[in-house]
């Protein structure tokens, strides 16, 4: 399976039952024999308020991108509402650099199910969906099997563990769209529509799936909850730094000796993560830059990386922890090319719903292709910055920001590289136009 050989500096909480190498997902018998589903047993004895308080105390923050405090999000749901209340798991995992949710689903599907149960209990919900990106068919099958086992053993169904409480859970496959990771677009997709975002407010806590109160969280966020209930919020908070509780999965990729997914406490120094756990920059080269939280996060120069990797410290450094994806660039990396590739990505994935994003990403893609091919002008560099600045905060959903943030930070921090490419002698040869024989 996917996990790397464990590193001594890791703190294994979420991944503590994983063995290396592990062949199959942890089955229900093994899970139950190792404290599995004890969290929901305990939660069933607690009031919803007490569950949410424990999650608040843990200072668990969303692992999907925005880092919103999870307990607070859950408390926004009106538990007394006559409408049904829903649990939605965001397993769309589309942010470039991110590859952790699959590790959780592949190794220990029951942990996610238990997290959903506890969340469901805390808002009086009777139904949940796990929205998994379509390419992850293998993990959808693993989750389906685990869900069937959980039903058979009475952890899911009309009478969860004899408590009289009903909770149903199923998977829902996506079909190829980054935008469907944005929570309101995901809910549209869940309803069988195009993944266009919704106007907020109302937030999903008020009007979410099928216009009912809903909580949407990332796979890793839900998966952290069983241990919080078992061992207490204070214990979990103590694993990290103030306001940034617990451990997280970091997805190391790029120019590294030991790329992989590892579990580290929040607040571990970024350079320790890269140099110790990730084995340092490959080929004996020097570090140039780090993308600390997925492709949408502003880039950090090597000298800015000596900071604790948690939500607040990265925000202070002008970037974000995002989805926990850390992409490492060595001294030979071509910053202009990286940004050009990213803008092509955002232009492709923009859903077209709002004009600033649809037009903005398309133009950023074109201008950056020009700069990358060596036919751009100085004016183009300024235009990237201006365009991104005027897009930022003015799009319907955060996809526009996700494109603007890297654009602004790359041109500001590595302007010399953009300028160097202007003077390159490279002659522009347009890519041959291949007319598709068959348009798929």
């Amino acid at each position: 399976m996917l996990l790397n050989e464990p590193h001594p500096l890791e703190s294994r909480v979420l991944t503590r039952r994983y063995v290396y190498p592990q062949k199959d997902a942890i089955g229900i018998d093994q899970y139950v024999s190792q404290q599995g589903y004890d969290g929901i047993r305990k939660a069933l004895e607690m009031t919803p308020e007490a569950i949410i308080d424990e999650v608040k105390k843990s200072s668990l923050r969303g692992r999907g991108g925005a880092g919103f405090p999870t307990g607070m999000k859950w408390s926004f749901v009106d538990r007394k509402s006559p409408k049904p209340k829903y649990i939605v798991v965001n397993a769309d995992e589309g942010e470039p650099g991110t590859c952790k949710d699959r590790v959780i689903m592949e190794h220990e599907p029951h942990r996610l199910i238990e997290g959903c149960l506890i969340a469901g209990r805390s808002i009086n919900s009777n139904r949940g969906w796990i929205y998994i990106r379509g390419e992850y068919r293998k993990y959808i099958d693993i989750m389906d099997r685990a869900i069937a086992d959980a039903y058979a053993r009475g952890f899911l169904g009309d009478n969860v563990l004899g408590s009289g409480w009903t909770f149903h859970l199923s998977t829902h496959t996506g079909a190829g769209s980054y935008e469907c990771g944005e929570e309101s677009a995901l809910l549209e997709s869940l309803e069988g529509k195009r993944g266009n975002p919704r106007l907020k407010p109302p937030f999903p806590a008020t009007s979410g799936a099928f216009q009912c109160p809903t909580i949407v969280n990332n796979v890793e966020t839900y998966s952290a909850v069983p241990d919080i209930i078992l061992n207490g919020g204070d214990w979990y908070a103590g694993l990290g730094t103030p306001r940034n509780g617990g451990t997280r999965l970091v997805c190391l990729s790029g120019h590294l000796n030991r790329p992989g997914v590892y579990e580290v406490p929040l607040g571990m120094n970024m350079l320790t993560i890269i140099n110790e756990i990730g084995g340092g920059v490959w080929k004996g080269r020097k570090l140039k830059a780090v993308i600390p939280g997925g492709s949408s996060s502003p880039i950090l120069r090597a000298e800015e990386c000596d900071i604790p990797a948690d939500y607040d410290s990265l925000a202070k450094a002008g970037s974000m922890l995002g989805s926990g994806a850390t992409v490492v660039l060595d001294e030979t990396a071509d910053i202009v090319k990286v940004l050009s590739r990213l803008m092509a990505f955002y232009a492709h994935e923009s859903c077209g719903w709002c004009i600033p994003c649809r037009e903005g990403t398309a133009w950023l893609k074109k201008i950056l292709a020009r700069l990358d091919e060596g036919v751009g002008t100085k004016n183009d560099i300024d235009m990237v910055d201006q365009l991104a600045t005027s897009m930022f905060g003015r799009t319907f959903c955060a996809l526009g920001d996700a494109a603007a943030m890297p654009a602004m930070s790359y041109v500001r921090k590595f302007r010399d590289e953009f300028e160097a490419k202007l003077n390159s002698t490279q002659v522009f040869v347009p890519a041959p136009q291949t007319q598709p024989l068959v348009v798929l």
Partner: protein
Amino acid sequence: MTFSPELEARFARLIENYPPGRQKGALIPMLLYAQDEIGSVTPELLAEVAKRLHVKQVEIEEVLGYYTMLTREPRGKHHIQVCTNVSCMLTGGEELYAHACKKLGIGNRQKTADGQFSLEEVECIGACSWAPAMLVNYDFHFNMTPEKLDSLIDSLRKMQ
């Protein structure tokens, strides 16, 4: 239109998963699972799904254009999807993709004349720590090299 008993059973379960009257929620999963069985979203499939979910055909057309995994044209038996997004690009994804084009003699979203292979340059497939990565249908292949790609394609050819 008839489907395999497994797919029928899946459809029956799927529709149960959504609130009463909101069975349209099953639309995208149904289209994708059905496409996997019959190869593409054909006009007959479209009509059948519209009937079963009580939606208008145009509602399905809207969705078809949006999701990249749904297709009206059958793909090759082995649909090769090479990621060239950032983590893969940094570790040789673009070279891998160019190599795949050369090896198969086709370009992006094309398929070979014998219908065995189709190729697509895709965005991040969530395998960044094991980059460069690619998919053949739903099977992931990690830490790819042009040599590994050659032997993979050769072995798929032999499978015919």
